[in-house]
């Protein structure tokens, strides 16, 4: 066999394996998509990815869900959007400022602060449930969106700060130096120079904050007393509850909830590689 033919064969093999693996990766999602559009109530009866008796009924039932004349789905959607958007904004604001200081200044408590962020990642969530409940109660934030927003943004902070700090570290200091010589204040440097340069990392930070809030159900379920105050994940959870399991409604609602996240994810994915690894590989 000639060298060329050997290489072609290898290339073909590589592509076949890669395609097969990709298909396996996507299969679960394709089946869920099929289930969401399926007319029959019996779940899957074949492995094909095409829905049997295609229909939008499941989506209609999920979106149109209302009780006592109140549009339940609408409430939950609104809650999710408000909480996620606010968490993103607050998370970015807190994380960028902190990361900037940690990257650029040397001050007492810096090492301890950075370490505490790392250590807080190891706190088991179950441990925090009761105490968080009580703290929110004491602050009068229980059953309020603001409570969820504050909790979610602080949950996202450690990861975001570490990532952003890594990114800031890679930005050369010369720019700031020359700006300082030109008389720029510390805030001007942060706002006009650092933020625009760190846009990819900030986009990723925002994505993580958003995903934290958009995907969380345990806290939302625990801290909200009023069922109308729940967010979408809590609603999805209920389709596969203990009493009744409605896989086709679960599938439809999953598609609805996952779409915005996936859209954002793909909008920002070109930043993902750079944003995630810039800090780590600099050395």
């Amino acid at each position, binding site marked *: 066999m000639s060298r060329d033919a050997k290489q072609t064969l290898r290339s073909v093999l*590589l*592509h076949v394996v890669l395609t097969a693996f990709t298909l396996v990766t996507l299969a679960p*999602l394709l089946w869920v998509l099929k289930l969401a559009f399926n007319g029959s109530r019996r779940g899957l009866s074949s492995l094909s990815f095409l829905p049997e008796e295609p229909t939008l009924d499941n989506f209609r039932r999920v979106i149109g869900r209302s009780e006592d004349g109140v549009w339940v789905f609408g409430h939950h959607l609104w809650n999710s959007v408000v909480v996620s958007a606010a968490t993103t904004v607050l998370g970015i604001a*807190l994380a960028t400022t902190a990361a900037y200081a940690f990257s650029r200044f040397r*001050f007492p408590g810096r090492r301890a602060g950075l370490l505490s962020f790392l250590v807080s*990642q190891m706190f088991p969530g179950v441990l925090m449930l009761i105490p968080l409940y009580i703290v929110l109660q004491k602050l009068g934030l229980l059953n309020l969106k603001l409570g969820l927003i504050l909790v979610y943004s602080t949950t996202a902070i450690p990861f975001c700060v570490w990532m952003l700090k890594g990114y800031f570290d890679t930005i050369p200091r010369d720019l700031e130096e020359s700006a300082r010589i030109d008389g720029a204040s510390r805030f001007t440097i942060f706002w006009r120079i650092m933020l625009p340069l760190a846009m990819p990392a900030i986009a990723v930070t925002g994505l993580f904050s958003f995903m934290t809030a958009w995907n969380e159900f345990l806290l939302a379920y625990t801290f909200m007393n009023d069922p109308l105050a729940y967010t979408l994940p809590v609603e999805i959870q209920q389709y596969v509850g203990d009493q009744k399991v409605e896989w086709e409604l679960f599938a439809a609602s999953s598609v609805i909830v996952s779409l915005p996240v996936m859209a954002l994810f793909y909008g920002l994915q070109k930043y993902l590689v750079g944003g995630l690894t810039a800090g*780590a590989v600099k050395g």
Partner: protein
Amino acid sequence: MDGPRRVHLLAAGVLLVAMVLVLGLALRRYQEELDARRLAVWEALGEAMATAGRAGSRTPTELEAWAASRREARPNVGRHFFLAAGRYLEALDLSEPPTFTMDSRGSRDLGPGDLRLGALVSTLEQHVADRGGHLGDLETGALWWAEPSEDGGQRLVAAFPVMRGGVFAGVAGVETVPDTRRRNLVPAALGILAFFTLLFLAGLRRWPRHPTPAFLAAALASGAVALALTAAVANKDQVRLSTARCGQAALLAGDLASTAPELLPAASRAWHQIWKREAPSLGAAGTGDAVVRGDDGSLRVSVGLLRAGEDGARILEQVFADLVPFLALLGLLALLSLAMPGLGRLVHGMVTMPGIYAYVVPAMAGMVVLVLIPFVMGVLLGFFTTDLEFIGLGNFQEILFPASVSDTNFYLTLGVTVLWTVTNVVLHVTIGLALALVLNNPAVKARGLFRVLLIVPWAVPNYITALIWKWMFNYEFGAINLLLQALGLSKVAWFGTSFWTNFLANLATNTWLGFPFMMVVSLGALQSIPGELYEAADIDGATRWQKFRGITLPLLKPALFPAIILGTIWTFNMFNVIYLVSGGGPDNQTNILITEAYRFFKVLNRYGFAAAYCVMIFVILLLYTIITNRVTRATEGTFE
């Protein structure tokens, strides 16, 4: 003295005084609250008995009416009312409780009460063995009631008819001894104080790299004092076996077993429920009630306990909520005393360069209020029982040195958790790295498209992923079984009784979930490796493998190690997948530490024990990170 040093000393003095004050206040407040609650429970019980006394003069018809009215009053709980051997009995009927069978070692399902129940059964076993008999599988049902004790107080008595193969085999009894005496909390307070003093000492001097013998002795001594004192407080039994009451109990249960054996399951369910929820503190709450007509014809009811039980659920929340400011302060103090040497410099720094701290303070304030304080509160909770009795290291003792009959096996669960973490991380890294290498190969067409498609699992919310896979593994409707059938294989009951099928289902889910992160990290790192290195290696005639070992792997390290550490922590605490896919089944075997902690928290309502479990998780992860960090130097340079 320089500025930071002066600030430090001043703060240290103020902290020490504040610590003592807050501790005293907190303990006093806690003591009063606990006493008030206890009193309320026993008062309710007394009231109930008075009602029972009045009921004693009623006719059976009146009793029926009374029973009906009680049924109406609490319609949400189904109940069995029955008359047996002249005694009027009422038992909880839960819609579909597990049947209460246990072998002689006690069953895992029993809940916290099984320790004592186990002791009971072994006593009984001994008793039967002494007479040359043998106890096989046991079924127990039970009744309980309240009655005046010799010292003028009240106590609860419970009796178990023990069934063997459906035949009445004997009776065992338990008597609760109400502990209304003011519990002396001074030892506990001293224990806490010793602990904080230790922290304080450690912080003040920093932990010496080569500790002097004097320091070591002081540290060990205060640690030992704290341990001994807390242990002394911890070992106060509230329930004790009573042989004296067994005769009476036998009479009753024997009657029931012989006259109405069909009612025993109901009674046993009620008892099961009581043990499960209230066993650690029978004096505080209860959910079943029994009305018993004694030999003198008077009726006694334990309905008061039922009322107290309804209160019981709220006790924790209220007492704990009242204690929040103190607990939070204590936590902060502990933290501050740990950071003593830094504290002076920190305060000094904040005063001299406020402009810098302005950037950090908002994020830090949020972290302190919503992450740090809850964490410290949670850790403190680990030293208490569910109704906030301070038991020192009792919970940790139960975790690390479990009695022969226990609800949980920490070491087994830890083993499963390690297996789970290792298999997952290995799969994530292997698959992620392999895909990254393939996607980095210029010979592959449409690399962008493949990359976009392969990170899809990352973009799907992970609880949705978990539920999707639960559905995929569903016996009837699941795609996996359909696939197996299409391949001519037989269906597999993934969530059946086998550990491995359940574990595999979890593993498949989490592998799917986790490899894209490693792939993206590896890809980023691969792209930053200069191509000249490979060209140079080609010139030297290096093989593919040599290039991988010599160039790729070493250069991937700085990016991969932090990702692996982070991935390990995430997997170790991957609650969603275990909880939503296998649910810990079968019989909690696939539970990892975090889901086991949640089981204690949510299912068994043992908050303190769950918190102690979580503290163990935290300590394990912390040690892991410190050790791997030492070995791999993964975070080296990030502090510069």
